[in-house]
């Protein structure tokens, strides 16, 4: 690859609070953003980021995505204006269920008051691309904008599309925004009934007692440009997106393929796309949902793809602190990973107190660990996301040490 993709700005709104650095600092300090079995963005105040008009026209998932995007654009130095032609800047939005809260509220309104009383804004609030549309409108992005939907893999899958749009010359920059706000009784119950939800309300990835995931909400955003463009305008990248790959289990709609074979292929292909091998990886940000099935399948996938190197690489789970942000998870976790690489830290897998016999990698239990000093001045990580439907997406990130 001649001109790599770099991230020049990052932003996040998560159950740990407002801001990408907040996520990183609190996670590394071992704080848990999950309260009463849910990862809510308690601190999020929409009026700090959106006008009254925008709030009214946006489902919570869009509000969160726009807020995170505002931070990323400011961080990238775009506050004074777009650095490229507007028709060459686009937005890729990741979400799994989009404006579901609006959908369910209006369904109830229609049922109770009659369907002629349903809000005229319903369609444009509930549609999954609503976040992309609002980001584009607010910042005047005229290039290709759309949503990427792949369940819990969406937030990582979005990197694939963003990369292609930059590599094939369609766009000069992509604003990658992700948002999910699906904490609502119907969704929680639906996960509970299918046996995916933690009964204890505590996320314990890779722990012997792990009992499923905790639902979270939140958003993440990155400004992605070609390295040459960033250098030309004097922007210092946060890090590089050096590789990406995705595969599909085609096995079962909810259970991961148990040997982790296809997930391993995604990891291997991602490393190949970056031109590196297992020995070059310093950290793995796992999908790590704390589901009984995922954690074992993911461990097998890591061992298959990383071979002997697997035992020496710290593997941790962001979901242990903020819960599962579903469509936004991969994006938020990539942001956490970039900052972890920057500071040379493997953030901890919280709640991991009792190891499982078969899960014997270094999952960074409870306390952060220092990453080993890189030989060539760069730290590299992979971030995995495995979505319902069998979607496996892996992004490879690199930061100068």
């Amino acid at each position, binding site marked *: 690859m001649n001109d790599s993709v770099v991230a020049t700005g990052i932003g996040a709104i998560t159950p740990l609070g407002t801001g990408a650095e907040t996520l990183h600092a609190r996670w590394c300090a071992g704080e848990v953003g999950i309260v009463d079995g849910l990862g809510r963005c308690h601190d999020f105040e929409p009026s700090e980021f959106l006008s*009254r008009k925008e709030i009214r026209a946006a489902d919570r998932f869009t509000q969160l995505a726009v807020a995170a995007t505002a931070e990323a654009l400011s961080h990238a130095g775009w506050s004074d204006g777009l650095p490229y032609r507007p028709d060459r800047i686009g937005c890729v939005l990741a979400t799994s269920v989009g404006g579901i809260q609006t959908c369910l509220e209006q369904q109830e309104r229609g049922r109770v008051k009659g369907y002629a*009383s349903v809000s*005229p804004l319903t369609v*444009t609030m509930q549609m999954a691309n609503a976040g992309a549309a609002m980001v584009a409108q607010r910042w005047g992005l005229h290039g290709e904008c759309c949503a990427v939907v792949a369940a819990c893999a969406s937030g990582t899958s979005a990197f694939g599309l963003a990369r292609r749009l930059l590599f094939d010359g369609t766009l000069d920059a992509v604003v990658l925004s992700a948002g999910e706000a699906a904490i609502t009784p119907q969704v929680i119950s639906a996960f509970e009934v299918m046996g995916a939800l933690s009964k204890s309300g505590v996320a314990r990835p890779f722990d012997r007692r792990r009992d499923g995931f905790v639902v979270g909400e939140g958003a993440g955003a990155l400004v992605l440009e070609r390295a040459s463009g960033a250098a030309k305008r004097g922007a210092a990248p946060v890090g590089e997106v050096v590789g990406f790959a995705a595969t599909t289990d085609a096995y079962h709609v909810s259970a991961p393929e148990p040997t982790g074979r296809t997930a391993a292929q995604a990891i291997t292909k991602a490393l190949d796309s970056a031109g590196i091998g297992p020995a070059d990886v310093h950290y793995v940000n796992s999908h790590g949902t704390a589901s009984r099935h995922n954690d074992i399948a993911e461990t097998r996938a890591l061992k298959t793809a990383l071979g002997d190197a697997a035992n020496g690489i710290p593997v941790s789970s962001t979901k242990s602190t903020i819960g599962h942000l579903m469509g936004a998870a991969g994006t938020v976790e990539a942001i956490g990973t970039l900052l972890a690489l920057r500071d040379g830290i493997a953030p901890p897998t919280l709640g991991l107190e009792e190891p499982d016999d078969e899960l014997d990698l270094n999952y960074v239990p409870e306390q952060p660990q220092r990453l080993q000093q890189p030989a060539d001045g760069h730290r590299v990580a992979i971030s995995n996301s495995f979505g319902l439907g069998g979607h496996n997406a892996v992004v490879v990130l690199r930061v100068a040490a």
Partner: protein
Amino acid sequence: MSPVATRESVESVVTDALERFGVERADITMDAALAELDIDSLDMIELGQIVREEFGVELRPEDVTELRDVGDLVGMVVQQAG
């Protein structure tokens, strides 16, 4: 039961609605031109729903396009409420 559609009650409901749509309260005067307020066609549809719910008045799209200012809108609702 719909409340009585007096000039005051209709003005109050319309003003509250426009403010919720994002218009600054100070800008909502009876001679404010509808075309100059920061509202769009979807807002007007919602306003129609509110007026129907509050006063039982059905505003037809063709009537609404004829309106020039907020006062005209209020007047039409009062008139149609009989």
